[in-house]
C-alpha cells in the first residue's frame, strides 16, 4: 500500500449531528444548518473561523452552493464530494488531508442526505443513460447475495443463518434504544426480527437499515493546534479509502463471503495506525451495517474475527455493547437509517462522544482506539473507507 497516512497529525475539535429520522418538517438546508452550528458551538468557533469546507452528499444537492447558500458562507471554498455510501467519510478524509497539507488551518467536513422527500421506499439512485443491460437490483437484493454464499461455505443451515443475521439486527437496535439521536430508539425482540416481512430472502425488512434524513459535521485542525480549542480532542490515526476493480461480478474466483475492498482498506488503515491485532487493539467500531449480512462479513474483513467464525462471535455476544469489541454502539445504520452523505460522520460522532465520555447510557469504559467503516456499492464491486481514531496521541 502506497498511502503514508497522517497518524496523529489531525484532531477533531468539534462535532455536530442532527437527530436522524423522518424530518418531514426539515429540508437538507435545515439539516445542514443544524449540524454546522452544533459543530461550531462544540468547537467554540465562529463560522468565519473555518477556512474551507468539504460537503458530502449523494443526491441532496450539487456543488458547494448546497452548503454555502444556507450557511451564508463568506466566500470560502466548499468542495462537494460523493463516493456513494462512503460520501460522509470521504468529506472528512478530504478535509483532514487539506489541513494536514498546511493549505488551511481549520476545516469542516459536513454531510447530509434528505431521503424522505422522494416518495419511494428504499434508496433511489439515478444512472447515466445506458444500454438497458445493467442488472437493476435493489440494494437489499444485492447484499442478500452474501447470505446463501456465506451460509453454504461455513455450513450454516437456513435457520441458523437467520438466527445469526437476526441477532445482528437485535444487537444494533438494542444499542440504538439507548441513543436519543437514533431514528429508532426501541429494542426489537428476536422473534419480530426473524418474522419480519421478506424483502430479499432471507432478509426481512428488519435486516435492512432504515431510510432517514440527517446531517453531521466535524471540525478539524492540526493536532498541535487542538488544545487551543478543546481539552479532549480525538486524533486521526488512519484514513483509508479504496475503490475496487469490481472483479466480483466478473470473476468466478470471488465467492461472495468477503468484500476485498474492505480487506484492502483495513490493511492500509491498520498499517497507517500501527494496528497489528485489530481484534485485541480496537476498543469499538462503527461499521456499515446497511444489511445484516454486510455486518457479518465485515467482522471478518476487518480482522475482528478469523474467517468463518464471525457468526459464532455474533451469537456469543462478542460485538455486543458489553462484549469485548462493541460494534455499532450507537445503534448503527440499523437504528439511524442511512442518509448517505451523513452516515460516515455520524459514525465519527459516536467515536467523539464515546472517547470524551459523553455517550450517556451506552457509554463504554474508556475506549482508546476506535474504527469507523463505510462501504458503497455491492458485494464484489464497491468502495470502502476505514478510519482509525484515538483519544490520545501515540
Amino acid at each position, binding site marked *: 500500500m502506497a498511502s503514508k497516512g497522517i497518524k496523529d497529525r489531525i484532531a477533531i475539535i468539534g462535532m455536530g449531528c442532527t437527530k436522524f429520522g423522518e424530518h418531514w418538517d426539515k429540508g437538507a438546508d435545515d439539516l445542514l444548518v443544524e449540524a454546522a452550528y452544533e459543530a461550531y458551538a462544540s468547537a467554540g468557533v465562529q463560522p468565519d473561523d473555518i477556512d474551507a469546507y468539504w460537503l458530502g452528499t449523494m443526491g441532496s444537492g450539487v456543488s458547494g452552493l448546497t452548503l454555502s447558500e444556507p450557511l451564508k458562507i463568506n466566500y470560502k471554498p466548499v468542495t462537494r464530494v460523493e463516493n456513494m455510501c462512503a460520501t460522509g467519510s470521504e468529506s472528512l478524509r478530504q478535509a483532514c488531508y487539506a489541513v494536514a497539507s498546511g493549505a488551511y488551518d481549520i476545516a469542516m467536513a459536513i454531510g447530509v442526505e434528505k431521503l424522505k422527500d422522494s*416518495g*419511494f*421506499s*428504499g434508496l*433511489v439512485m439515478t*444512472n447515466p*443513460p*445506458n*444500454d*438497458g*443491460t445493467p*442488472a*437493476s*437490483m*435493489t440494494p*437489499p*437484493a*444485492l447484499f*442478500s*447475495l*452474501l447470505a*446463501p*454464499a456465506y451460509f*453454504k461455505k461455513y455450513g450454516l443451515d437456513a435457520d441458523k443463518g437467520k438466527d445469526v443475521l437476526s441477532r445482528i439486527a437485535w444487537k444494533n437496535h438494542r444499542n440504538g434504544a439507548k441513543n436519543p439521536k437514533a431514528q429508532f430508539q426501541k429494542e426489537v425482540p428476536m422473534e419480530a426480527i426473524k418474522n419480519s416481512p*421478506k*424483502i*430479499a*430472502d432471507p432478509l426481512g425488512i428488519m435486516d435492512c437499515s432504515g431510510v432517514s434524513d440527517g446531517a453531521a459535521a466535524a471540525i478539524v485542525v492540526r493536532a498541535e493546534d487542538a488544545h487551543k480549542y478543546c481539552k479532549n480532542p480525538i486524533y486521526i490515526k488512519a484514513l483509508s479509502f479504496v475503490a475496487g*476493480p469490481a*472483479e466480483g*461480478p*466478473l*470473476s*468466478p474466483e*470471488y*465467492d*461472495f463471503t468477503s468484500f476485498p475492498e474492505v480487506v484492502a482498506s483495513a490493511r492500509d488503515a491498520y498499517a497507517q495506525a500501527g494496528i497489528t491485532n485489530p481484534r485485541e487493539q480496537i476498543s469499538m467500531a462503527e461499521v456499515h451495517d446497511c444489511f445484516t449480512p454486510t455486518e457479518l462479513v465485515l467482522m471478518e474483513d476487518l480482522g475482528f474475527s478469523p474467517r468463518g467464525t464471525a457468526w459464532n462471535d455474533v451469537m456469543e455476544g462478542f460485538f455486543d455493547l458489553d462484549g469485548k469489541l462493541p460494534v455499532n454502539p450507537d445503534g448503527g445504520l440499523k437504528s439511524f437509517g442511512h442518509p448517505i452523505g451523513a452516515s460516515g460522520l455520524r459514525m465519527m460522532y459516536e467515536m467523539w462522544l464515546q472517547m470524551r465520555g459523553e455517550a450517556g447510557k451506552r457509554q463504554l469504559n474508556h475506549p482508546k482506539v476506535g474504527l469507523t467503516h463505510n462501504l458503497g456499492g455491492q458485494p464484489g464491486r464497491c468502495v470502502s473507507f476505514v478510519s482509525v481514531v484515538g483519544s490520545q496521541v501515540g
Partner: protein
Amino acid sequence: MAGIVSYGSYIPYRRLKRAAIAAVLGVPATRGERSVASFDEDSVSMAVAALRDALKATRSPDVRSLVFATTTAPYAEKLNAALVGAAALLPAEIRASDSTGSIRAGLSAMLQAADAVAATGGQAAVAISDSRLGAPEGKAEQSNGDGAAAFVFGNENVIAEIVASASLTREYLDSWRAPGERFAHSWEERFALTQAYSPLFKKIIHDVLEKAKVAPGDLAKIVLDAPNQRAADEMLRELKLDPAKVADSLSLMVGQTGAAHAALMLTAVLPGAKAGDHILVATVGDGADAMVLKVTPAGAAFKPVHSVGRMVESKGDVTYGNYLKWREILPTEPPRRPDPERPAAPPMMRSEKWKFGLIGSRCTACGTPQLPPQRVCVKCRAFDKMEPYAFADRTGRVATYAIDRLAFSLNPPTVNVVVDYEGGGRFLCEMTDCEPDKVAIGDEVEMTFRRLFTADGVHNYFWKARPKR
C-alpha cells in the same frame, strides 16, 4: 430443389390451465391448458429462441434474408425483424422484413422464403411467432396459445423439399383487429366455417396435391392448421382425412399459436418423419396457403435442438391472476419505486453485439472469458487484448442468488443469480421461468433472450438465465 434446411421451435415454459380461467370467471372450461408467454416474453423474444435453434442446426450457414411473421409485433413502427436478426447474430448484409395481417402470415412467409432461395440462391430464414390474446370470458382466451417456430430455407443440405405450393387470397370478414385494439373481433363462427374455411381448405388441398402429383392416400402426414379446434374437427370429417395421418393440433397442451401454428405443428411432425415421406401443410386466413414437402434422408436424420415434445413437457403453471397482470389486462398498484428508465439509443447501438447477442470478450493474453466485454482484462490487466466471445449458448451454475421483493416487476419477486459459465466467465443477471423457493446454489442454468421491461414505448430486450430446459 429448394426446401427446409433446418428448423427450431419454441413453446414458453408457462401454462395456464383452462379450468383455472373458468374457476375465476365462471365460464365453461375446456380441457387442457394453453401456453403463455411469460411476463418477459413476446413474439420477438420467442422468435429469437426458435431462430437461434434453427441457425444452430444449420449446416454451412449462408442466410441472406429474414422474415419475421406475427400478428402481435411488439413494434408497430420499427422493424421487428431487425431485432430478431440482431439477437440471432445474423449479419447486417441481409434483407429483412416483417410479415403480418393474418394468422396465414407464417406459412406465406415460408413460401416466399422458399421462392427466394429458388430464385437467388443462398439461404432464407423465417421466424414465426405469436403471443395471442383473447378477451376474458371469450373462447379465444382459452383456445389460443403462445409459441414460435423458425426455418432456414436453402437449396443444399435440404431436409424437406418443397414439392409444390399453392395460395389463394379472398376478401371476407372473419376476424379483425384495428390499430390500438388488444383483442380481435370475429364474425359468427358458422359463417367462417361454411363460407371460408371449408371451401378454402378443399380447394387449396386439391390444388397443391394436383401440383405435387401426390394422391391424398400417399401423404404420410397432414398438418391442417385451422383457426380453432372445432373448425379443425369439421374439416377432418368433411375432407375425409385419415385421422391417423393428421398431425396433432397441439390444442390440448399448447393452444392455437396464431401465425406460428402451422409452422409449430410442422416442427412437431418433422422429427418423426421418414425419408420419402410426403407432408401436406395447409392453413387459412383471408385465403389459404398450402405446401407439400418431401422428407429427404438428411431430414430423417435431423435432430432439432429442442423438440416440440420436450418443450410441451417442460412447463410450470401460471395462475390466472398473474396471467391477467402479465398481459396488463388487470391494472395493478405500482410499487413505491421509480419507473424503469428507457434505454438510450446511442449506448444500445454501441453495445449491439453485447445487448442483443450476449457477446462478451475473452482475453487473448490470459484466456479469461468475461462479460460484459472489457477493455482491461479482469484477470491479467492486459489492455485491449480482447476478442469477442459468445455466452448465449453456454450453460452455467448458480454461484449465489437473491430474491428481490422490492424491485419493479410484473412478476415479483425478481430472482437474480450469479452465473458461473462452463468454460469461464461470470454474470449477474435475472433468472426467469423459475420457482423462487426452489433456487439453489449449484443449479444448472442456460441463457434466454427476454424483454426486461417497456419504458416510453421502448422495449428493453436483454438476456436472462433460466433453469436448463
